[in-house]
C-alpha cells in the first residue's frame, strides 16, 4: 500500500478539524451527544468506525497508540485498527497500557488507572441510552434537553421486576455531572466506577454519527434505586493465571468435561502481573510460559 | 323555597321545517318550605315539562324559577349542578344508572356526592331499601335487571337518601302495591315535616289529597287551552 498517498492518520485535515470541533464541544458539555458528519471508513460499521475517526482526529506523530477489544490487544479487530494507524499515521504502537498515550477501546476500560496525559477513545454502537424504550430521535433529544429521564429508571424497574435485581450488566446508564444521562458504551458495569478518571475519555459512534466526551475528573454516577443500589459486579473468582482478585474476568471453558478457567479480560494487566511474578491457581511462572 | 314567575316554554323543531310549538305561557306558583304542591291537568297539558324545567332539564324560554337562591331559568350549568347536589332532589319515573353499579351504591350516591362518609351513606341507603321492601339479596346487584316496581322503589330510595330542602316527585306512587305506596307517602310526609318544599305529579288521587296542600292546574298555563 502506498501509504504516502494518504494524509496523516487517513482522514483529511478538514474532516479532522470538524471532528475536533465536535470533540471540544463534547468536552465542554460532558455527556451530551454532539452530531458530527461521520465519514466512510475503510472498514464496516460495527468495527469501530466512530472510534477510528476520533482517534484519527486526536493522534499526533509523537503518540504511542494502543488498541484493545474486550480487554485484549490481540483480537482481529484490535490488530487491524492498530495496523491501520501504524500504516496511515506511522505512529508507534504498543500493548503496554502505561506506555500508550492514546488508547482506543471496545467494551472495556483498562484495569490500570489512566493518567492525565492519556486519552481513552471508545467505540460506541448505539450512543442513545433512551433508544430501547423511545424509538423517536426527536423525542429522545427533547427528553435530554428537558432532563426527562424517568424512562431510564423504567428500564431498571423492568430489570428488577423480571430478574429480581438490576440485570443490566453492560452499557449500564450513567448520569454525568448531574445533567446528561449517557450510555458508557457496552463496557461491563464493573468498569462504571472507573469512568471518573484522570484521563480524557472520548466516545465515537460512526453509524449513528455522534461524539460525546468526559473531561478528566467528571462526576459520573450509575443510575439505581434506593433499595436496589448499583453494584459493580464481576465473577466471584480470582484470575487463574495471575491471581488478581480485583480485575474483570473472562470465563473460558477449557475442555469437554466442563473445566473452566477464569482469566483477566485485560490481557496487558495480566501479562504485566505475571511478569512481576504473580501466579494464579492454574498459572505457571512466566519464564516457562515464554519458552 | 320554590318560586315560579312568568315562565314560558316552546319547542323549536329545526329538522321539521322549524316548527315552533309553544307549550307553556306565564306559569306562576310558589311552594313554601314544608308544603307540597300537586301539579294537575290532562295528559299533555305540560305537567312533566314544567317539572323538567324546574329541575333544569328543559330550558326555559323566559321567566324565572327561583329555587334555593338560584334562578334555574338562567343559571350557569355549574350553579344548577350545585343546586341539584345539595338543594334540589328529583324522583323521575325512570331509573337511569350506570350498568354494573350495585343497588346500594346507586342509593348512596347522592349522599356521597354531598361529601357524606361512605359508611353513613351506606347505612342510610340500607335503611331506605329496607323500608321500601327491596329484598336484601338484591342490594349488591345492579337495579338494571329489576322489575319495574323494584326499579321505581330504588329510584325513590335514591331520591330520599339525602334530605333535600326542595324535592320534585314525578308519579312516585305509580306501579306500587298498597304497602309500598304507604311507605312512599310516609316518606313524603316526613320530608314535609322536616321542611322540604315539594312539587309532585300524582295520578293517584287519594295520594294527592293526602299529601298535597295545594294543587296547581297546569292547563291554565297551556297556550291555546287557557
Amino acid at each position: 500500500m502506498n501509504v504516502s498517498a494518504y494524509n496523516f492518520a487517513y482522514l483529511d485535515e478538514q474532516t479532522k478539524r470538524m471532528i475536533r470541533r465536535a470533540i471540544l464541544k463534547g468536552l465542554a458539555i460532558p455527556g451530551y451527544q454532539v452530531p458530527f458528519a461521520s465519514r466512510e471508513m475503510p472498514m464496516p460499521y460495527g468495527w469501530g468506525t466512530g472510534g477510528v475517526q476520533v482517534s484519527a482526529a486526536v493522534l499526533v506523530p509523537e503518540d504511542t497508540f494502543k488498541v484493545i477489544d474486550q480487554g485484549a490487544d490481540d483480537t482481529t479487530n484490535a490488530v487491524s485498527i492498530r495496523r491501520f494507524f501504524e500504516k496511515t499515521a506511522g505512529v508507534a504502537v504498543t500493548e503496554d497500557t502505561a506506555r500508550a498515550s492514546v488508547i482506543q477501546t471496545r467494551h472495556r476500560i483498562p484495569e490500570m488507572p489512566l493518567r492525565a496525559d492519556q486519552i481513552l477513545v471508545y467505540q460506541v454502537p448505539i450512543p442513545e441510552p433512551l433508544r430501547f424504550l423511545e424509538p423517536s430521535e426527536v423525542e429522545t433529544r427533547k427528553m435530554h434537553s428537558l432532563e426527562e429521564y424517568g424512562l431510564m429508571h423504567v428500564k431498571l424497574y423492568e430489570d428488577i421486576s423480571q430478574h429480581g435485581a438490576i440485570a443490566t450488566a453492560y452499557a449500564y446508564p450513567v448520569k454525568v455531572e448531574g445533567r446528561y444521562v449517557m450510555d458508557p458504551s457496552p463496557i461491563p458495569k464493573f468498569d462504571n466506577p472507573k469512568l471518573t478518571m484522570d484521563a480524557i475519555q472520548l466516545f465515537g459512534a460512526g453509524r449513528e454519527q455522534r461524539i460525546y466526551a468526559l473531561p478528566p475528573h467528571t462526576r459520573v454516577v450509575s443510575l439505581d434505586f434506593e433499595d436496589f443500589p448499583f453494584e459493580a459486579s464481576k465473577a466471584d473468582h480470582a484470575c487463574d493465571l495471575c491471581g488478581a482478585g480485583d480485575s474483570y474476568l473472562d470465563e473460558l471453558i477449557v475442555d469437554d468435561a466442563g473445566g473452566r478457567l477464569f482469566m483477566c479480560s485485560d490481557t496487558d494487566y495480566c501479562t504485566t502481573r505475571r511478569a512481576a511474578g504473580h501466579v494464579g491457581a492454574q498459572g505457571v511462572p512466566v519464564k516457562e510460559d515464554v519458552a | 323555597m320554590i318560586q315560579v314567575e312568568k315562565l314560558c316554554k316552546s319547542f323549536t323543531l329545526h329538522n321539521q321545517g322549524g316548527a315552533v310549538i309553544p307549550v307553556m305561557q306565564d306559569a306562576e306558583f310558589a311552594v313554601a318550605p314544608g308544603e307540597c304542591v300537586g301539579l294537575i291537568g290532562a295528559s299533555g297539558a305540560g305537567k312533566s315539562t314544567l317539572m323538567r324545567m324546574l329541575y333544569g332539564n328543559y330550558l326555559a324560554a323566559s321567566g324565572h324559577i327561583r329555587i334555593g337562591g338560584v334562578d334555574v331559568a338562567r343559571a350557569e350549568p355549574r350553579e344548577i349542578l350545585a343546586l341539584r347536589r345539595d338543594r334540589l332532589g328529583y324522583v323521575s319515573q325512570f331509573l337511569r344508572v350506570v350498568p354494573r353499579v350495585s343497588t346500594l351504591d346507586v342509593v348512596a350516591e347522592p349522599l356521597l356526592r354531598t361529601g357524606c362518609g361512605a359508611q353513613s351513606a351506606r347505612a342510610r341507603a340500607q335503611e331506605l331499601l329496607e323500608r321500601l321492601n327491596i329484598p336484601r339479596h338484591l342490594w349488591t346487584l345492579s337495579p338494571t335487571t329489576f322489575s319495574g316496581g323494584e326499579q321505581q322503589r330504588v329510584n325513590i330510595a335514591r331520591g330520599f337518601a339525602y334530605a333535600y330542602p326542595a324535592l320534585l316527585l314525578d308519579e312516585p306512587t305509580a306501579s306500587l302495591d298498597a304497602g309500598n305506596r304507604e311507605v312512599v307517602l310516609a316518606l313524603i310526609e316526613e320530608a314535609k315535616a322536616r321542611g322540604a318544599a315539594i312539587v309532585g305529579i300524582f295520578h293517584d288521587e287519594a295520594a294527592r289529597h293526602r299529601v298535597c296542600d295545594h294543587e296547581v292546574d297546569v292547563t291554565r298555563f297551556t297556550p291555546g287551552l287557557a
Partner: protein
Amino acid sequence: MTPLLQVEAVSKFYGARIGCADVSFDLYPGEVMGIVGESGSGKSTLLNCLAGHLQPDAGAVRFDTRAEGLRDTITMSEPERRMLGRTDWAFVHQHARDGLRMNVSAGGNVGERLMAVGARHYGDIRNSATDWLGRVEIAADRIDDRPSAFSGGMQQRLQIARNLVTGPRLVFMDEPTGGLDVSVQARLLDLMRGLVREMGLSAIIVTHDLAVVRLLADRLMVMKDGHVVETGLTDQVLDDPQHGYTQLLVSSVLQV
C-alpha cells in the same frame, strides 16, 4: 371560585380549513365536560389544543397551576407544559397502544409517571403500581405482564391507572370507550365515574357516543364544523336540544 381551566377564543386552522374556531369555556374543579360531534367536527383538534399537543393559532388556555395560579399554557415554556403533562394533567387516548408502552410491563407502565417525577424507591413504586392495578380491577399477578397480553378493556384500564397514579387534577380523554365491547364499556364508565368522584377530578371527554356523556359528563358542548353550536347541562342538551344540529344528533341515536 377560580376555574381550573379557562379557555378563551381558541382557534386552530389547517391552512384554510378550520380545525376549531373561537372556542371558549370555563371548567371548574370537579366538573366533567363532554365534547360531542361527528368525525371532523373539530373535537379532537380542540382537545389536543387544550392538552398542549397542538399549538392553537389564537386564543388562551389558562390552567390554575398549584404554584402560580392561572397561567396560559400556550405561552408557557415547553418544559413547564410537559411537566404539567406528567403531573397535574393526564391524557387518555382512544387507542391504548398510543398511551401505553407496549414493550414495558404493566407495573412499569404505571410506575413511569412516578419515576418521571423523581420516585427512586423500587419497593414504593411497585406498591403504588399494585395498588393502582387493583383500583382499575387488574389482578395483582398481572403486574409483570406486558400490555400486549391484555384484552382491549384491560389495556384501557391500565392506561387510566398509568395516568392517574400521580394524582392529576385534570384528565383529557379522547374517545376513552371507543372500540370496546358494550359490556366492557359499561365497566370502564363505572370505574371512571368512581375515580372522578373519589379523586375530585375534572375531566374533558371527547366522544361521539351520547350514552357515554350522559353517564359521565356534567356539562356538554356540541361541535359542528369546528364551531361550538350548543353548550349546557348534559341532560338539558340531550333532552331539550336547542340547535338544529343537536336535535338531529340526539334523534339519530338508535334506541334499544
